C-alpha cells in the first residue's frame, strides 16, 4: 500500500505540474514530437531501403544471355557446369519464347502493347540462364566464369544496383542518425530546462517537503514523471500522426521499396514501440538529470 500511495501521489503531482507550467511543458512536448516524427521517417525510409536491398538479393543475382543456336545438349551441359559452381543456389533456363511472354506481360502491366514490328521478320529474344546465389558475394566469381564460356553471349548482374542501393542506405542512415541525434540533444536540453523551471517555481514547496521529512523519492519522482509525461504525450501524438498518414504511405512502400513487411501490422507495432521507448527514455533522462543536479545542491 505505501508504494501504491507513493505512485498515486507522484502521478497526480506530475499531472498537476505539467499543466501548472503548461506553456513550457507543451513546448517541450512539441520538440519531442518533432524528434519522433524525424525518427519515424528515418525508420520508415531505412526499413524500406533495407527491404529493397533484400528484394534485390532475393531476385536473380546473375543472368547469362546465351548465344543463338545452341543445341539442347550444350545448354544442359552448361546448366550442369553452372550448378556445380560455388555459391550457386538455382539455375533456371528461360527460352526465347518465355522471355517474349514476360516482355509482353510487363508491357500489359503498364497498359501498353508491345509492337513486334514487321511480321515477316519477327523479333526474337535471347535464351538465358537465371542464376540465383546462396551468397551475393559469389556474384563476381560466377560472372567471371560465365564470361569466359563460349556458350554465353553476355553476363548481366544486379551487383551494380545492389552496391548503389547499399551506398544510398549508408548515407541516409548516417545523415538520419546524426540528424535525429542532434534533435534528440535539443529535446533533452528542452526537457532539462522545462523541469528545472518547474523545480525552481516550486522551490518553496520542495523546501517544505524536505523540512517535514519527505524522502528524496517523494520529491524527485513527480518531476521525473512530469518529464516522462512530456515524452509519453509526444510519443502518443506521433504514433497517431504516423497512423493517420499510414494508408497513403503503405502502398508507396510496397511499390517503391518492394517491401512486403510494410503491409503487416507488426511493422507499425515495432515503429510505435520504438517511438514510445525513445519518447519515454528522453523524457526520463532529461528530467532525471535536471532534478538530480538540483536536489544534490540543496540537500
Amino acid at each position, binding site marked *: *500500500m*505505501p508504494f501504491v*500511495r*507513493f505512485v498515486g*501521489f507522484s502521478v497526480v503531482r506530475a499531472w498537476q505540474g505539467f499543466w501548472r507550467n503548461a506553456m513550457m511543458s507543451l513546448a517541450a512536448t512539441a520538440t519531442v514530437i518533432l524528434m519522433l516524427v524525424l525518427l519515424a521517417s528515418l525508420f520508415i525510409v531505412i526499413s524500406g531501403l533495407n527491404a529493397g536491398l533484400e528484394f534485390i538479393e532475393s531476385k536473380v543475382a546473375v543472368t547469362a544471355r546465351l548465344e543463338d543456336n545452341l543445341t539442347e545438349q550444350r545448354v544442359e551441359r552448361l546448366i550442369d557446369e553452372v550448378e556445380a559452381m560455388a555459391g550457386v543456389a538455382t539455375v533456371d533456363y528461360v527460352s526465347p519464347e518465355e522471355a517474349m511472354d514476360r516482355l509482353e506481360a510487363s508491357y500489359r502491366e503498364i497498359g501498353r502493347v508491345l509492337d513486334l514490328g514487321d511480321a515477316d521478320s519477327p523479333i526474337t529474344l535471347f535464351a538465358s540462364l537465371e542464376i540465383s546465389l546462396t551468397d551475393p558475394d559469389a556474384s563476381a566469381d560466377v560472372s567471371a566464369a560465365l564470361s569466359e564460356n563460349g556458350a554465353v553471349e553476355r553476363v548481366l548482374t544486379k551487383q551494380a544496383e545492389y552496391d548503389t542501393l547499399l551506398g544510398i542506405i549508408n548515407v541516409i542512415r548516417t545523415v538520419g542518425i546524426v540528424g535525429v541525434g542532434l534533435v534528440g540533444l535539443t529535446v533533452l536540453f528542452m526537457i532539462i530546462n522545462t523541469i528545472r523551471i518547474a523545480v525552481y517555481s516550486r522551490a*518553496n*514547496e520542495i*523546501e*517544505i*517537503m*524536505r*523540512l*517535514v*521529512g*519527505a*524522502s*528524496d523519492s*517523494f*520529491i524527485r519522482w513527480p518531476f521525473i514523471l512530469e518529464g516522462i509525461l512530456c515524452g509519453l504525450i509526444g510519443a502518443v501524438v506521433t504514433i497517431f500522426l504516423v497512423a493517420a498518414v499510414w494508408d497513403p504511405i503503405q502502398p508507396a512502400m510496397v511499390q517503391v521499396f518492394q517491401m512486403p513487411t510494410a503491409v503487416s501490422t507488426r511493422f507499425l507495432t515495432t515503429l510505435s514501440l520504438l517511438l514510445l521507448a525513445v519518447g519515454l527514455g528522453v523524457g526520463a533522462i532529461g528530467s532525471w538529470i535536471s532534478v538530480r543536479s538540483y536536489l544534490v545542491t540543496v*540537500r
Partner: protein
Amino acid sequence: MTSLLRRRHRAEPTDAPVISMVDVGMTYPNGKVALADVNVSIPPGDFVFLVGPSGAGKSTFIRLLIREQLPTHGQVRVAGRDLLRMRRGQVPGLRRRIGIVFQDFRLLPNKTVAENVAFALDVTGAPGATIRRRVPQLLSLVGLQDHAHHLPTQLSGGEQQRTAIARALVHDPAILIADEPTGNLDPVTSWEIIQLLIQINQLGTTVLMATHNQEIVNAMRRRVLALEGGHLMRDEAAAAYEREY
C-alpha cells in the same frame, strides 16, 4: 488533548538529552566562523530560548540540528541520533522527529489551512485515513478548526503561524524548533503564539525557540542559550535577556 501528541520518543531513556552538541564548530568555506566549540545538552521536555544578535550563529545552530548542514568538527545528536554518522536516506526520518516553524510561516499560498497541514502528511506517504483523522485534531489543538477552508491570504499573521505550528506537529515530533516565530507579529498575537508553544511543551514536546524578543524571554524565565559571534556566551536556567543592540 494529550492524546493528540502521541510521544514516539517515550521509548528513549528519559534522562538522555534530546539535543546534544559536543565541541561543535562550524566554519564556512570563506573562513567565517559561525559556531565555535559549542557544548549544549537539552533534556526532553525542556523549553529553551536561543538568543543573540544577528550573525551570532542562531541560524547555523538550527541548521545543524535539522541536518541542513554538518559541523566542521564536534558531535551533534538529536533525538538519539548521531547526525554525522547519519546516511542521506535517514535524514527524512530525523526531520519527522523535529517540527520547525519560521518567522515567515512558509505556507503554500494556493492551499487552504487544512491542505497546508495535510500536505506534510501527504508528502511523507501517510494513508488518507490518517490524514483525515489527524488534520482536524491538529487544527483543533491550534484553535483553527473554523478556518480549515481558508487560504493563508485570508488569515491574520497569528493564524498563519498557528497553521505553521499545526503543520510542524503532524508527525508528533520530539522537538519543536521555532525560528523567530513572533518576529512578524504584534505583541498581543505574539503572546498567543507563546501560550500555544507553552501548551505544546506541557504535552511533552521539547521546544527550542530562537528569538530577539526580550520582553517574552524575560517574562517567561526559562532556560536561555545566548550566542554571540558563534560562541555560547551564556547557558542559564530561568534566565533573563537584555538586548544590547
